[in-house]
């Protein structure tokens, strides 16, 4: 096709004098504001579509009742009844499976053009990811509170000090925050929210169940038991049981994380964030560079 040039403008490069949006000099302050704005936006989404929240509202109640009344078979564990053992495990189980929400949320925003809109604005690049991780941390807090309240309603009791009770809340939440960064990576490489959810659950269900969360590891075959005792979910669960003052059969296991569950849970969580947060940012950068 021959080019028909009717007339051509003579490009005159200009000095950059165009009026601009407010300067972004206070970059840290502005980055924090970007994160706050995006976190708030995610929370509005949750409020508008409460069904999105079923992972952290209905599911925890359902799992708690199912495990305690249907699946336990009346087994007494570690000197107490099953529900005294189960609640910490149910906290880990629910937080672990609900962490896929981060992948789903990010994948949805990538597909809907929301991320493109944010990217044409002069925002801190990682704000989309950090904002999502924080709004999902609040979801995790809701999720954990619901398990605890359900447990209290059916007769579960912590036997501990307020400080240790607070620590028992903090450790599973820290772990959930770490997992959110791990599934954020998944969200960056998946084709869409459905595939993110599908792949995520294939990974997260074994992670949640090959652990001491719902059954003591003592009865497991040796190889499975070794995996379970080094699984971060087991460390988090054992730490919560210990801090709540609930039966913790894992205390008798030789594996190092079972002997030091609080330290192990914190190390696992910090390690996962240290690896997955930079990775998620790098994957986000790659995904949004075309």
């Amino acid at each position: 096709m021959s080019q028909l040039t009717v007339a051509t403008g003579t490009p005159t490069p200009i000095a950059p004098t165009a009026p601009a949006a407010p300067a972004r000099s206070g970059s840290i302050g502005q980055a924090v504001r970007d994160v706050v704005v995006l976190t708030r936006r995610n929370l509005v989404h949750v409020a508008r579509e409460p069904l999105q929240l079923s992972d952290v509202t209905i599911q925890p109640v359902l799992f708690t009742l199912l495990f305690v009344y249907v699946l336990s078979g009346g087994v007494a564990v570690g000197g107490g009844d099953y529900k005294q053992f189960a609640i910490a495990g149910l906290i880990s189980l629910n937080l672990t499976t609900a962490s896929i929400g981060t992948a789903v949320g990010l994948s949805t925003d990538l597909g809907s053009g929301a991320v493109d809109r944010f990217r044409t604005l002069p925002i801190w690049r990682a704000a989309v990811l950090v904002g999502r991780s924080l709004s999902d941390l609040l979801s995790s807090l809701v999720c954990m509170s619901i398990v605890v309240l359900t447990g209290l309603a059916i007769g579960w009791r912590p036997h501990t000090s307020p400080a240790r009770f607070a620590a028992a809340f903090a450790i599973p939440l820290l772990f959930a925050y770490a997992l959110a960064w791990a599934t954020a990576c998944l969200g960056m490489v998946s084709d869409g929210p459905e595939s993110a959810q599908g792949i995520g659950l294939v990974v997260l269900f074994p992670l949640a169940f090959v652990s001491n969360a719902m059954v003591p590891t003592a009865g497991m075959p040796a190889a499975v038991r070794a995996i379970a005792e080094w699984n971060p979910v087991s460390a988090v669960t054992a730490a919560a049981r210990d801090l709540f003052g609930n039966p913790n059969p894992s205390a008798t296991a030789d594996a190092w994380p079972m002997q030091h569950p609080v330290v192990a849970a914190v190390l696992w969580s910090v390690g996962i964030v240290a690896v997955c947060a930079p990775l998620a940012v790098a994957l986000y950068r790659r995904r949004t560079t075309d």
Partner: protein
Amino acid sequence: MDQIMIEATDLAKRYGDTQALAGVDLSVPAGTILGVLGPNGAGKSTAVRILTTLARPDAGHARVAGYDVVTQAGEVRRRIGVTAQDATVDEALTGRQNLRMVAELSGLRRGAAATRADELLERFELAGAADRVVKGYSGGMRRRLDLAASLVAHPAVLFLDEPTTGLDPTSRARMWDVVRDLVAAGTTILLTTQYLEEADALADRIVVIDHGRVVARGTAGELKAATGGHRLEVTLSAPHDGALPALAPLVEGRVDVDAGGRRLRAGVRSGSGVATEVIRALDGVGALVDDVVVHAPSLDDVFFALTGQGVS
């Protein structure tokens, strides 16, 4: 001398096997509208993605408001507004929440962001729907909100990617008015469209893109003039054997005949006096004429002449 607010040199971009852009030059002086015209898949949106820092060119470079879109993307983002093809307003938020969010992300403090949101809601006739969730908005309302969001930070350069695709004629006319007001106020606009009528109505200059290349550029008038003369369309009361020989000396090239021989179409070199001559000639052979139209070529005709295909 006019400032050039958008300047692209030899932009190229490949996606897999598709050469989306194959060397595109653009130049838009301050305070004018460039219409980028082309069918679906011509490369219009790819050009917009590069100019708005969403995509990197494989080759060539571009400056917007004086800043390089790759190496100074942050500076570019502070000076542009973008309205995308599929309005990217947040469906779960209200109109007001959308504008406040964009304002805050553009660097406005909360109070200033709220004020700016209110101004824009008023200006785009969305004040009444401000606290409704966008999911319930009509297509026209969404586009207006999207445009309002892109204007939050008073951008010097505005990119409108098919801003009226899918809108009803009333909404389209309102959008056109808004665009004209913006340019009158000094904003530089790059507008992509599949609608020739839209480029004709709004753009100071037009670039026609096809298969990732610029196939023509100029004002609407220049493009039409370059395509050749006027078009003649005659409708007879009844088919007449003498009509074709009578028209032959007045027209250029062949005469298309359809509607059972009643409608005759051909090119004519000049529009001046031609209708009178046509009626005289046809009257001379005893053909009864219902209707004669002589019109300048539309951009549709231009596009057809340039690319060998119609638009969309």
